[in-house]
């Protein structure tokens, strides 16, 4: 029996190859993510091993800020408190903040981690690898991350801008970096303080202690002296924490890979299951013959599972190779995203990866084969003697199972769409609905195909194709179902994208009155641009009003949140409001404006007091305004403080956005050019955009995101296509005599090819439409959960149409090989075929 199984694999090389390919993608994703994580993880540990040597304690602001957004600061007087603490040996105060850079006069505005400007005068924070520390107002030393990312070397010129105008610096040294994340640009303390506008403030103090065994005691002593909002940390612990933060960024890559691994594996399982079912169905007589000759049920099952194991192991091995390729690609992507230096070493390939890849391949195939194998073993020896086609089985089981998965799925999705239950419940619902649709494919497949055929008209060849596609409803349903998964995901994602676009358009058109908007073009938009621009723009005759917004991070009534800001004088010229409680003029000092939905959620109204902590402890603030945009926009930044208050509190922070309202009759494009002329030389990161450009930018960004997702999902669609090829090949094989007969009575090769092609197209349209339906529904649900109740739902017709067209093309492509086989059958052999 086992020998028969192995021979089966060899005799059906093409079938085996297609089965193997269906599993390879999933295995590759799994292996790739493992190799990638091991590779990057290894280099991380090496880098952080040596970090912060010679520093025992770090004093920092007590806000979990990460690297982006506004770097908080504390008063310089804290240094005295630390220095005079008993047991402290040396202290190195520092300032740090976001910077933007230009190389050869061109702003570098790649997506990715931000760039940090920091003061450093040779203390142990960094070690010099080349050159020397920066000193004086025109020198900078950069870390290895910045060096690699921007391809800089000692002697090069870079333009850097923090809160002021662009300044040229010469690179005088290279210091060790952390290998990933932000790039560091170090200046001497005076230069950094001026550039970051942090006069009289520090953002951190590094401390060494007299007795390394007494770090804890000194740490406690310092902590006791520190004012609210400033904390002291064990430097080694801080380093570990930082490593953890960076590793989390890496975890994101791994998660993405694993999600796609999961999708590919699932689709692969369905394809392989369907193929095994079909093959074994076709081999019923052969298996029955084995049983007649005395093989036990067990032996039949074993022979099938042996065949499956060989295929699984082959897939595992090829998947490993695919994994290596994927890991290299991921490493490259990660280096673009901010990891450099990590990409230096070779790929780390651990034995466990080898074992996992082979296991995944093996398990996937065995899982897919086990049900068909058990069914095959139940074949009665009598079946060997029967030649007639089995009558089609009732699909009651499919109906029951489909409903069992589908109903709860639909309910969960509806509740998620109405924003009643969390997103993960919706995800579970979507999974249930997908499974249900997969099972239901068998039930709706036949009527569906008949309807499509009626629409297309029953040309003779197409009629036969229709009948063939409807002949084995379970097979057709399962083949289409595999395709449905990928299509559903694509459509769901495009729903989100289309709704996002629609919402953004509504915001721009119905909520913003200003014709021009200035934003930062740097990698981190929250880095903003210099406030020095504002008076320059205000000075123009064509400008009626300028409204500036700053950002801050903190907490409101104990909940962490972002704060935006409004200028009461010009806010009504910049935005369109529907209903405003209170007076904008009152938004001064320690007051806050709250968007209505947020206000209702928290039960706030004008005059109420809230507690806001901006990094130096909670303080009472008064609600001055409760407002609504004219558009149905659910602004996630629902809390706005007076811009002037934020400017006082955070002198080191830039303006994040400026809304420019023009004098009536001024052309926005002309105004844009004249503003650019004034500011672009000194402030290259302030990007002036019209509303149309902003929309177009958003669209490009969304499309970019979408294309990445699509490329990854294309994998699962590709596997589903392999499934169609497989099933069609098996069907052609099964219908050899019919095809021979057709050719004998005068069907041309072209007609036979067309027949197979139509069958493929029917199946792929079925899969695409099921996918579009489930995807649109899931997308609606997901959008409801993200954008809140009452969002404006948009069906992504364009994407669904494109998807359908793509499915038809894919069906045609999938049919090429099987159609050629069918058309090239030798007529006489085919007629004589048993």
């Amino acid at each position, binding site marked *: 029996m086992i020998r028969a199984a192995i021979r089966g694999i060899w005799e059906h090389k093409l079938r085996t190859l297609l089965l193997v390919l269906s599993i390879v993608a999933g295995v590759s994703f799994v292996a790739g993510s493992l190799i990638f994580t091991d590779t990057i993880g290894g280099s991380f540990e090496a880098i952080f091993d040596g970090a912060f040597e010679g520093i025992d304690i770090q004093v920092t602001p007590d806000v979990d800020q990460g690297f982006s957004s506004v770097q908080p600061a504390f008063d310089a007087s804290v240094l005295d408190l630390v220095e005079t603490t008993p047991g402290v040996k040396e202290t190195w105060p520092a300032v740090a903040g976001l910077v933007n850079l230009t190389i050869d006069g061109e702003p570098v505005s790649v997506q990715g981690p931000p760039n940090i400007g920091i003061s450093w005068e040779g203390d142990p924070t960094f070690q010099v690898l080349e050159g020397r520390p920066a000193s004086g107002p025109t020198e900078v030393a950069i870390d290895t991350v910045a060096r690699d990312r921007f391809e800089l070397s000692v002697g090069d010129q870079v333009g850097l801008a923090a809160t002021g105008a662009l300044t040229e610096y010469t690179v005088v040294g290279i210091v060790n970096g952390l290998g990933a994340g932000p790039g560091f640009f170090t200046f001497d303390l005076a230069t950094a303080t001026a550039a970051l506008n942090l006069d009289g403030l520090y953002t951190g103090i590094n401390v060494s202690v007299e007795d390394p065994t007494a770090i804890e005691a000194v740490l406690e002593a310092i902590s006791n002296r520190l004012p609210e909002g400033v904390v002291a940390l064990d430097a080694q612990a801080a380093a570990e924490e930082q490593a953890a933060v960076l590793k989390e960024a890496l975890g994101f890559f791994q998660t993405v890979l694993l999600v796609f691994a999961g999708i590919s594996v699932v689709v692969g399982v369905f394809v392989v299951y369907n193929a095994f079912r079909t093959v074994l169905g076709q081999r019923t007589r052969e298996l029955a013959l084995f049983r007649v000759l005395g093989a036990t049920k067990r032996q039949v099952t074993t022979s099938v599972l042996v065949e499956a194991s060989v295929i699984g192991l082959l897939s595992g091995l090829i998947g490993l190779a695919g994994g290596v390729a994927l890991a290299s690609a991921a490493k490259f992507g990660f280096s673009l995203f901010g990891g450099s230096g990590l990409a230096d070493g070779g790929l780390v390939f651990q034995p466990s990866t080898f074992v996992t890849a082979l296991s995944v391949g093996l398990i996937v195939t065995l899982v897919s084969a086990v049900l068909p194998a058990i069914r095959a073993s139940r074949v009665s020896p009598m079946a060997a003697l029967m030649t007639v*086609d089995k009558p089609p089985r009732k699909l009651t089981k499919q109906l029951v199972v489909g409903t069992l998965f589908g109903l709860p799925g639909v309910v969960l999705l509806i509740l998620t769409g109405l924003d009643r239950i969390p997103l993960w419940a919706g995800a579970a619902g979507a999974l249930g609905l997908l499974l249900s649709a997969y099972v239901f494919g068998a039930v709706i497949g036949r009527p569906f195909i008949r309807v499509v055929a009626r629409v297309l008209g029953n040309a003779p*060849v197409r*009629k036969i194709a229709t*009948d063939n596609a409807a*002949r084995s409803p379970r097979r057709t349903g399962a083949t289409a179902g595999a395709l449905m998964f990928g299509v559903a995901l694509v459509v769901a994602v495009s729903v989100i994208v289309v709704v996002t676009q629609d919402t953004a358009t509504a915001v721009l058109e119905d909520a913003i009155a200003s014709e021009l908007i200035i934003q930062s073009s740097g990698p981190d938009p929250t880095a903003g641009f210099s406030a020095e621009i504002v008076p320059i723009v205000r000075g123009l005759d064509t400008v009626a009003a300028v409204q500036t917004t700053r950002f801050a991070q903190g907490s409101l009534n104990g909940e962490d949140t972002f704060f935006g800001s409004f200028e009461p004088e010009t806010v009504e010229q910049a935005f369109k409001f529907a209903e405003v409680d209170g007076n904008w003029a009152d938004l001064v000092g320690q007051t806050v404006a709250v968007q209505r939905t947020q206000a209702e959620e928290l039960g706030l109204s004008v005059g109420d007091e809230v507690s806001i902590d901006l990094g130096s402890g909670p303080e009472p603030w008064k609600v001055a305004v409760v407002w609504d945009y004219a558009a149905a926009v659910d602004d996630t930044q629902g809390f706005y403080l007076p811009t002037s208050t934020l400017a006082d509190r955070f002198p080191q922070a830039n303006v994040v956005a400026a809304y420019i309202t023009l004098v009536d009759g001024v052309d926005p494009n002309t105004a844009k050019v004249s503003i650019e002329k004034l500011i672009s030389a000194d402030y290259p990161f302030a990007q002036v955009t019209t509303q149309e450009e902003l929309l177009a930018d958003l669209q490009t960004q969304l499309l970019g995101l979408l294309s990445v997702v699509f490329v990854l999902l294309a994998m699962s669609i590709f596997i589903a296509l392999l499934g169609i090829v497989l099933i069609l090949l098996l069907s052609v094989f099964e219908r050899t005599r019919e095809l021979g*007969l057709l050719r*004998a009575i005068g069907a041309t*090769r072209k007609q036979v090819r067309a027949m197979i092609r139509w069958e493929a197209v029917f199946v792929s349209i079925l899969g695409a439409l099921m996918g579009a339906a489930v995807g649109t529904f899931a997308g609606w649900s997901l959008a409801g959960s993200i954008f809140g109740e009452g969002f404006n739902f948009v069906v992504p017709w364009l994407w669904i149409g494109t998807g359908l067209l793509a499915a038809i093309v894919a069906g045609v492509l999938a049919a090429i090989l099987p159609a050629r086989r069918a058309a090239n059958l030798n007529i006489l052999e085919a*007629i004589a075929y048993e």
Partner: protein
Amino acid sequence: MTSPAARAVSATKIYGQGDTKVTALNDVSVDFARGEFTAIMGPSGSGKSTLMHCLAALDDLTEGSVYLGDVELTGMGDRELTELRRDKIGFIFQSFNLIPTLTAKENIVLPASIAGRTTNKEWFDQVIGILGIGDRLGHRPSEMSGGQQQRVAAARALASRPEIIFGDEPSGNLDSKSGAELLGFMRQAVDEHGQTIVMVTHDAISASYADRIVFLADGKIVDEMLEPTAEKVLDRIKTLEA
């Protein structure tokens, strides 16, 4: 009567090479007249099916030539041969004559609909009438008996009014009653509608329905008989085998 409906001239068919070489047809020349019902007989392996396949544009010769009417088949491409089969030839195989997913009616009109033509309604009704399958038209092959299936196959062969119909043991799988009925219908088609039929058979009684019998042995035509009866055929077979 001008040219014969089909004609083989020095037809030779050799399978394989060297040791495995088999000469299935050895310099066979034979004519099949229009409106004639011919049976081909001979021992197993004598080349009956091979001859028929070559005449029916399903296979090509190693040497010699085959004509359908005035048209020479030798050297034609696959497309031309396919259209020839579709438009000029009818087939009745021993079994598996019908597409299982199509109804009897759909099977009968299949060659015409593949060609994008409609079948002449009057003729269709007449054929159905002759074969007595009017009440089976909506049935699928799996819902019909073997005899009914072969009658549907015969109806398909007749429906497109081909120049010639080939049958490879069309009654071979049928019991004697159904077989006799089928052969009776074929006889009727020849007598009443001038249909040309060439049929391979093993069975003396079946052969007696024909106007003429061609005997093959070892790839050669060894004898012919006109106006056969079952007894004459049985006698002849005995002498041939002796």
